[in-house]
């Protein structure tokens, strides 16, 4: 028998779902986005322009005003005082990269919140949709970002998405179970029927085809 013939084409096959959507330079940067926090915006935009770290001292990070507005609006729309700033930077970068108009729309949300001194998520969402119907989609993007960990159709965080944080007393994210064999036989917590109302008008619910 002879040796298996090795193909350079075969050897290069290692595509991942995100990699399929991204170009080569973007593919290399996703993990860095998660790790670099304040530098994430530059990374998502293409860090190849950044100088090498071993030749230039790291710059003092400047606060991107767009990112600051995004974080402020996010705190309001989640009714949370604490959100992870590194995740926020990556979400904002992904969101704006996919839809550049989000920068201005988030600024509008920020201005609305300040102008009317809005406190709760419901107040801001209602005011936003009343002011401009297009802002509903922007709010959806922000909710999808924080709760699903997805921005611009790409996964930014999985295990630490808020949807898993708020259900962690009952269930694990898929592939991250830590309860040991047969944990699933125990009784999970009861959940009362919610009484809160939606703040935005309903939208068609489209299940992605498999």
């Amino acid at each position, binding site marked *: 028998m*002879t040796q*298996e*013939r090795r*193909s350079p*084409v*075969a050897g290069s096959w*290692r*595509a*991942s*779902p995100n990699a*399929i959507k991204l170009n080569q330079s973007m593919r290399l940067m996703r993990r860095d986005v998660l790790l670099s926090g304040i530098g994430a915006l530059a990374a998502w935009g293409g860090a190849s322009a950044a100088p090498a770290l071993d030749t230039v001292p790291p710059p003092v990070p400047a606060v991107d005003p767009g990112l600051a507005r995004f974080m402020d609006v996010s705190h309001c729309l989640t*009714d949370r005082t604490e959100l992870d700033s590194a995740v926020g930077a990556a979400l904002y970068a992904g969101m704006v990269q996919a839809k550049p108009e989000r920068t201005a729309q988030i600024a509008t949300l920020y201005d609305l919140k300040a102008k009317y001194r809005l406190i*709760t*998520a*419901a107040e801001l969402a209602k005011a936003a949709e009343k002011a401009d119907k297009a802002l509903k989609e922007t*709010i959806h993007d922000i*909710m999808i970002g924080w*709760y*699903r960990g997805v921005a611009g159709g790409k*996964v930014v965080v*999985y295990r630490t998405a*808020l*949807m*898993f944080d*708020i*259900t962690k007393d*009952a*269930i*694990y994210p*898929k*592939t991250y*179970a830590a*309860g*040991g*064999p*047969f*944990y*699933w*036989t*125990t*009784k*999970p*917590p*009861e*959940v009362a*029927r*919610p009484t*809160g*109302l*939606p*703040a*935005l008008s*309903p*939208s*068609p*619910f*489209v*299940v992605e*085809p*498999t």
Partner: protein
Amino acid sequence: MSSDQNLSADVVIVGSGVAGSSIANELVRAGISVIVLEAGPRVDRQHFVENFRNLENKPSYQGPFPSTPWAPHPPNQQSPNKYLHTTGPDAEAYQQAYLRLMGGTTWHWAGCAWRYLPSDFELKTRYGQGRDWALSYDDLEPFYYQAEVMMGVCGPDPSVEDLGSPRKQPYPMEALPLSYAGEQFRKLITEKTPWRIVHEPQARNTRPYDGRPTCEGHNNCMPICPIGAMYNGSYSVYHAEAAGAKFIPNAVVYKIERDAANKKVTAVHYYDPDKGSHRVSGKYFVIAAHCIETAKLLLLSADEQSPDGVANSSGHVGRNMMDHTGVQVTFISGDKALWPGRGPLETNVIDNFRDGSWRNERGAYLVHMVDDNQVDFATQLAISKGYVGRELEEQIRYLASHTVRLFSHNEALPDPENRLTLSKTEKDVLGIPHPEVYYKLPQYTVRSCDHTRSVFKQLIHLMHGTDEEWTPGYFPQDHPSGSTIMGVAPKDSVVDGHCRTHDHENLFIASSSVFSTVGTGNITLTVAAIALRVADTLKKELLHG
């Protein structure tokens, strides 16, 4: 381009899934040389676990497994499709998903390891429908057990919970305990319906087994078990390789060569990714390349000797395509929280509709209450309803803990008009035509699905369900079968009861493609049992003449 390589073995196997790899393992351990040719690449589990975690559309079972240009597989279950082209009135119902990778499609399966019922092999005799197999349940029973031991199947004690398939030995492992959600569903069914819930037999460890760990309930059996507690074909590949079998990845078989008399296969030819051609000779050949790819290869090998394709004197290669076309509904339970998705994906089944006198007019089926983590679904649903902030979080918790999904596997019948052919217009990078399937649901299946819908409506009512979302039409269950159908008569079947082709004495087929009918329950254990029976036949012939 043709290489001067001269690969040869006692037995040459095309396909490295459960069937091909388990045959290889059996034969090589009996001292028989084996070469396995796999069209796709060798893969590792963690790569695909990472792909899954990075996948935005988590329910996409094909998503973590991108195919290669030289061995394409369906990228998804959408019609039209970039690889498997379906046509006919029920084209979407036959949009199957499968993988062309080392280890095969069981990289994503739920581990459900059903034996067929004795009646499933005698549908024509007992109910006047479809066909009888050219083997009986009793013929297959020892190989069912061998397959259960090979895979590591857990299941209930038959003296407590009889699943209807007589057993001579107990399951290798005790049944998997039902989840809390499954247990609540079982209580409801027991107390308020005439039906019952059984523990589904599964190729999943309830104790350390065969060097693999106990299931930890990651709820990701499909698309990828992250720890290998669930059997898949890769484990039989590893075992066979350790014993000396040679597996060649990225080897796309495109031709089956026969002798001058057209009675014996002499070699198969494969392309590597650069379209270099290689010839592999042997004494025996087994095509174990999945139902669709197996038929495709036989048709692709048509030449002057066999103008309609290899092993196709009956004209039945590619015909009689079947599946467990199903019905699915998702709704919000009005009862107490269930929190589905804690534990393995599928643990419980209503099995009352697997057999009965009514099979003379409608197909059998079984019902799963899927134990799937609904947090992501709940989040998307709640956002679409317009919730934000604190109210959104309350909705996510409620919907994730109360969402219920039911689906069924409904029995098809072999119909020669439901047919796989080679595409006349679509080819892959090697110039090999894509498969095309015409499909029209048999009325037998349609009536079965109608019955299922009525049962689901009763269950939704019992659970005070709201927000019903019925998956439109019928959906494929990825259990394709029938394309090289088994039978006694060479005039209307492709293989005999031992899976030997009627036309070529040293050519066997080990795949769901040989199924004469499709019964109920996932097909993989029956595929494995048939494959092990093929291995047994080959051992007898090679070792004892």
